């Protein structure tokens, strides 16, 4: 979960490193995924989690359940129906018009009540602004462990959830267990897990649970909601092609070389964390553990050394191309294709060469 551990060595001498699950926790069974929807839109991270949850449930030989919380009516019903297409064995719903907008108080109540009533052993949520706001409150209410931003989820031989995440600012990975508390909670960032295939299936068993609140019980009011303009939104996480730059670019002015290549490729552009910390690029363009996780078909990293915190954000790419002056940079350990050269010099040539290669004119020539 949690804050970074205090030593890098396995936590020896710790009181509860053995699994001694108390009797009342033994009733906790099955794997749950919280289905996040905002204004009728299910966040894709929820389906990605269903894919991961399905694997855990199969290993544990238990059910996979989706939890859909939202307003009464079409949006919540269709989210529940979709959950079956992404592998749910059953769906819990809390449908109430007080849940039309996300509010911490009402959603925490809804999810905590369902957990306390139906007792899952594992509960997964997306590490979005909504999921993190909710997960922290629910885990604290239930006094259980919560592991944030996992990059890998597995089941150990003793049936415990083994949740792996970067630690120490992303310089190492650690595997975290919640041995003696239930549910074992974890969040995963969008795009970390692959999108599972959608299989059309009929609606299965739906268990609805009441919210049990009236509007006066909820202190926080939503005065208005301003949706992002589509043009202002970067599609970095879901882009097919991404070009990113790092400290090897040397100066903020040189970052335009990255943007120019991205434009020619119809790609999204991004950067490594140091460029955000230096203020060269805005944080919505950051790729890595604390930024966006990407799974493009092609990822070109220019002047990025490839620290672990960056690596975990790009490893899902089909093809990783690294450009770096340092042949010993860690990025060459996980790139598929690399070139040891100065990105500042190569990028303009690469942009020109791609432009020539991809122009309709040159394609006609190839065809003829």
């Amino acid at each position, binding site marked *: 979960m949690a804050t970074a551990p205090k030593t890098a060595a396995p936590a020896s001498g710790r009181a509860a490193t053995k699994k001694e699950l108390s009797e009342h926790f033994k009733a906790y069974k099955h794997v749950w995924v919280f289905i996040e929807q905002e204004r009728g839109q299910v966040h894709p991270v929820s389906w990605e989690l269903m894919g991961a949850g399905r694997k855990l449930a199969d290993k544990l030989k238990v059910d996979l359940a989706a939890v859909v919380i939202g307003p009464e009516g079409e949006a919540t019903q269709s989210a529940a129906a979709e959950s079956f297409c992404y592998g749910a064995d059953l769906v819990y719903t809390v449908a109430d018009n007080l849940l039309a907008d996300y509010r*911490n108080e009402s959603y925490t109540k809804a999810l905590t009540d369902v957990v306390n009533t139906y007792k899952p052993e594992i509960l997964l949520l997306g590490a979005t602004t909504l999921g993190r*706001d909710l997960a922290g409150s629910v*885990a604290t209410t239930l006094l259980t462990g*919560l592991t944030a931003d996992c990059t890998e989820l597995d089941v150990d031989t003793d049936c415990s959830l083994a949740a792996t995440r970067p630690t120490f600012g992303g310089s190492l990975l650690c595997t975290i267990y919640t041995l003696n508390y239930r549910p074992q909670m974890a969040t995963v960032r969008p795009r970390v897990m692959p999108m599972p295939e959608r299989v059309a299936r009929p609606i299965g068993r739906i268990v609805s649970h009441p919210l049990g609140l009236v509007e006066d019980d909820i202190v926080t009011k939503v005065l208005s909601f301003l949706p992002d303009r589509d043009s202002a939104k970067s599609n970095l996480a879901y882009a097919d092609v991404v070009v990113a730059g790092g400290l090897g670019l040397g100066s903020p002015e040189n970052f335009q070389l990255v943007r120019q290549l991205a434009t020619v490729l119809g790609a999204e552009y991004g950067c490594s964390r140091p460029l955000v910390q230096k203020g060269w690029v805005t944080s919505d363009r950051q790729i890595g553990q604390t930024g966006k996780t990407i799974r493009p078909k*092609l990822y070109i990293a220019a002047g990025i050394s490839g620290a672990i915190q960056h690596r975990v954000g790009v490893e899902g790419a089909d093809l990783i191309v*690294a450009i770096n002056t340092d042949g010993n940079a860690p990025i060459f350990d996980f790139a598929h294709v690399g*070139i040891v050269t100065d990105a500042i010099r190569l990028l303009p040539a690469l942009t020109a060469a791609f432009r020539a290669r991809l122009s309709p004119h040159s394609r006609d020539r190839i065809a003829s």
Partner: protein
Amino acid sequence: MHIVVCIKQVPDSAQIRVHPVTNTIMRQGVPTIINPYDLFALEAALELRDQFGGEVTVLTMGPPSAEDSLRKALTFGADRAVLLTDRFFAGADTLATTYALATAIRKISTEFGAPDLVFTGKQTIDGDTAQVGPGIAKRLGLLQLTYVAKISALDLEARTIDAERRSEGGVQLLRTRLPCLVTMLEATNQIRRGAMADALRAARAPIVKWSAQDAGVEDISKCGLRGSPTIVKRVFAPAARSEKAALIESGEQPAEALIDAIFKRQPALETELATLARGY
């Protein structure tokens, strides 16, 4: 008005090095800083105090050396600093951390006045969990506003606060009641330089130092390692891919050679890129 700002002293992650053989963190000589995200919370709190009057108390839990970060916060203009330090707090995960911090905030409440607002940063740069803010709020029964881009109104008489909260697809304008916990989003303000008078005061100011007992911790088993439901079983560096990157010679035409290598590995990309590129 009384505002408590929770900060954390963290290693400057840009300078963390991992021992290549033992996979342990080489801590020697790594400078510590105030978690950068916390500075946005501190500045937001100072701005409200400047506008509405009152006091800002900074609180941290950490080793005795975390006093440095508290003094730094005082140079920015915080009025009071509280250091929660005790070996019982060591090794805390986020649940145990929120227990200790919530206990300390209750004690601050009785000693220095109940806070109207508690601020934290969005997350820390070492743990990156974003869980401590919501956890403190839950334990203290405070309402919570996370990922706040802007505090648009504060009404101390009506006891309400309006804030713009970043959500995945837009911005929620929320109104809630005080006391409330706010986690500030990054890049929402710029930490002040701090006045000379504050720097002079900070150097000599007494730091309130509390052990677990001083802070009023009733159940020591809820603190530190013992109070943490999560257990770190293994820390490791990821393995390199079995197949190293195919290196392109940077000869006469490196760009063309690189493009050839890309399309050779992923032949379908050429058509897809041409289609994508035409969209622009």
